[in-house]
């Protein structure tokens, strides 16, 4: 059983408390999230507003399932800002903040995965 059970509660609800399925979805998350974060940084550098909004939205859907509410809130801010009058400096700051938070969280989730 993973140590931080509460972070996976929503996932458990979706997957009928099936540990094998939870493990597989955690693996999928850990496999995809670095690419998504890279993509967010890249589109921010390019000031590609449409892609920033779409990537932030996609990331937000995923992180919510792992109880990463702080990260989800920051992604929401990016999404809203990019819809209105985008402040690219601010967006870059938010992206960096997300990357930093996720760096720590990903280590935690790797550990969690090893406990399955």
């Amino acid at each position, binding site marked *: 059983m993973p140590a931080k059970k509460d972070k996976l509660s929503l*996932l458990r609800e979706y997957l009928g408390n099936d540990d094998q399925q939870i493990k597989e*979805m955690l693996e999928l998350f850990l496999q995809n999230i670095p690419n998504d974060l890279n993509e967010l940084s890249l589109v921010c550098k390019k000031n590609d507003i449409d892609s920033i909004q779409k990537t932030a939205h996609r990331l937000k859907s995923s992180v919510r399932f792992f109880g990463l509410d702080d990260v989800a809130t920051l992604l929401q801010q990016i999404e809203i800002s990019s819809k209105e009058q985008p402040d690219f400096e601010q967006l870059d700051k938010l992206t960096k903040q997300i990357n930093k938070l996720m760096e720590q969280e990903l280590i935690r989730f790797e550990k969690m995965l090893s406990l399955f």
Partner: protein
Amino acid sequence: MAGTKRPLKIFVVEDNLFYGELLKRHLSLNPDNEVYLFKTGKECLDHLYQKPDLISLDYGLPDIPGDKVLKKIKADYPELPVIIVSGQEDIKTAVSLLRGGAYDYFVKDDDTKDRLWNAVNKIRQHMNLRDELDVLKDEIEQKYAFRNVIKGSSPALKKVFALMEKAIHSNITVSITGETGTGKELVAKAIHYNSPRAKNPFIPINVSAIPNELIESELFGYEKGAFTGANTRKIGKFELAEGGTLFLDEIAEMDVNMQTKLLRVIQEKELTRIGGHEVIKTDVRLIVATHCNLAEEVKKGNFRQDLYYRLLGLPIELPPLRNRGLDIILLAKYFAEQYCKDNGLEQKIFTKAAQDKLMSYNYPGNVRELAAIVELAAVMSDGKYIDESHITFNSSGLPSDILSEEITLDGYNKKIIRYFLEKYDGNVVKTAEKLGIGKSTLYRMLKTKNI
């Protein structure tokens, strides 16, 4: 099929690989769901030939906007339920998508899982009911495949088959005549269930079984408050048979006033419910039946000539069983086989003497009477064989060889009265009318002659 439900084929269209996989796995928790994941609108559209039962569609797809994907799906598969799952709560978009044919609109939030699960279950129930309905319709069609309904190979019956074929492949009104028990309603059903109208209702109504004052409301319906006791609106048989067939049995018994109203509806192809103003268009095929000679009834002034010609259409005369030769044996074997099968009995064989006895009778009650005779014989026979001793004819039937029995005039009277009483379900008024005597005379005879 009713016992073996097919899986519900669900397409999940979601560009977020993680979320899509999660929805797929969640819906797959029910082993009766068969879930496929597609990342783009194009992938989904390319696989529609696989005929999904339901699509969960992400509104914000990278290649084609959700509303366009929905439009394309609905153009080819208007009945296919599509649930839109959107990242944004946008009432205007939701309304427009629902108007465009979406089954529902969900925002991605903590409730999405439950809402989707419930919607899927609801669609499954609907699909199962639809499947069961299709199976039942097929069973009915099979049951009324007309060679299964009317058994026999006599020349008289072959003529009937040829006419039924013509009736099946046209929309013409059919008038069926024949003695009681010859299977007029079965022929009407067989024509309907083999015709292009088979998927729509077959509505039978026995005119002689409904009092004159009620027949109009039965046929055309009424509005709430049309008369005392009309507490709710009633839909008439004509409307119930929309797109299908209305079978008017014993049409000769219809009151002359009602005949005028029926003629108007047939001519105009529209009706108005009693107490209503709305003119309702009708598309109903008519099949009528009678044991009387309608042309004779026209001559006597009991039946409107113009209605007679409207209803005559394709006349099919069902031969009495006594004119169907060896069909009697063929039918007897069929009834015995069915009866033994239904009651878990060993199959029975008719001896030569039993067959001769069956062929010697005139069957005033026709096929219905033969079925009853055979069932009784199957019960009476203990072994494998049905012998002549097991076959009993119903003496209350009006025998055509009535004079073969040398009995008194009083005896003949009793026999005739019993026959008509049984024919009209004990209705003394009708029996008196048919025998051309007063009802009090009949009551007196019943009392004094101990009938």
